[in-house]
């Protein structure tokens, strides 16, 4: 059951992410990203972060991506704009970045595979001391709204207020950047 949920939502997220990155038009990209975020929300729910799963759908898939859709509508792109956006360019710094990205991903996967084969008693045979245990065997954790609110409004009260200030600054900045200059 757990494996079905993981591979179902995880595969959905990865396939949708690939289709988003390779999308010809930004409109298709936004819609695939919604699918990807729904997949990630499913994984959050599988990890017992139920409130975060709801927030992921409401804030990410709901609010932020609707903002993207509004901007695409506002820009009024011509068809010529869309067809020009297909290609990747592998020249310049992009090739270096691609190499670094592939190497970094290969390093993490290698570490995980080696770590999965190490002896749980001696810790030998891998590059990490992380002992894999089935997620279902972990001690339970409840991520409902009440449980998450306790640390959010006690330990992290100051960062919470700082984030509200950041959002206010972002609103004012966005308005100041986009408003038309009056003559």
């Amino acid at each position: 059951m757990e494996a079905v949920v993981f591979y179902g939502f995880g595969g959905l997220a990865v396939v949708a992410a690939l289709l988003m990155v390779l999308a010809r038009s930004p409109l298709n990209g936004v819609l695939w990203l919604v699918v990807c975020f729904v997949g990630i929300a499913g994984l959050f729910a599988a990890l017992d972060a139920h409130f975060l799963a709801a927030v992921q759908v409401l804030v990410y898939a709901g609010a932020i991506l609707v903002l993207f859709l509004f901007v695409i509508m506002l820009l009024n792109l011509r068809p010529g704009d869309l067809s020009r956006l297909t290609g990747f360019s592998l020249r310049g710094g992009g090739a270096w970045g691609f190499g670094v990205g592939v190497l970094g991903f290969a390093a993490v996967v290698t570490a995980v595979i080696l770590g999965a084969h190490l002896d749980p008693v001696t810790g030998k045979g891998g590059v990490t001391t992380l002992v894999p245990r089935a997620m279902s065997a972990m001690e339970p954790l409840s991520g409902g709204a009440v449980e998450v609110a306790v640390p959010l409004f006690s330990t992290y009260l100051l960062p919470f207020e700082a984030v509200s200030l950041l959002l206010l600054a972002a609103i004012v900045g966005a308005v100041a950047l986009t408003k038309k200059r009056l003559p």
Partner: protein
Amino acid sequence: MSLTPITVHHYLVLSTLLFAIGLFGVLFQRNIIIVLMSLELMLSGANLAFVTFSRTHANLQGQVMVFFSIAVAAAEAAVALSILIALFRARDSVNVDAASDLKG
């Protein structure tokens, strides 16, 4: 069908995969809108790692951090999209190469 039990490694590989796909989009897409969406995807990959470790350590602080991450991502998206609109007004293009020089 026998599947191995899902461990923390499965989630970490998936999280890294999402991050790598996002990085690929940031580096190679010429459309600045899709570049911004790839940035959101990279943030989501990191969020998945946060929630995974929150679960394995039975500690809610990772989930609180994802809250802040989502709030900062929302602020980032708002400012980045308004910069995108200003850029489109100035250059009449959504190609990142149109903004390769800082003159004018």
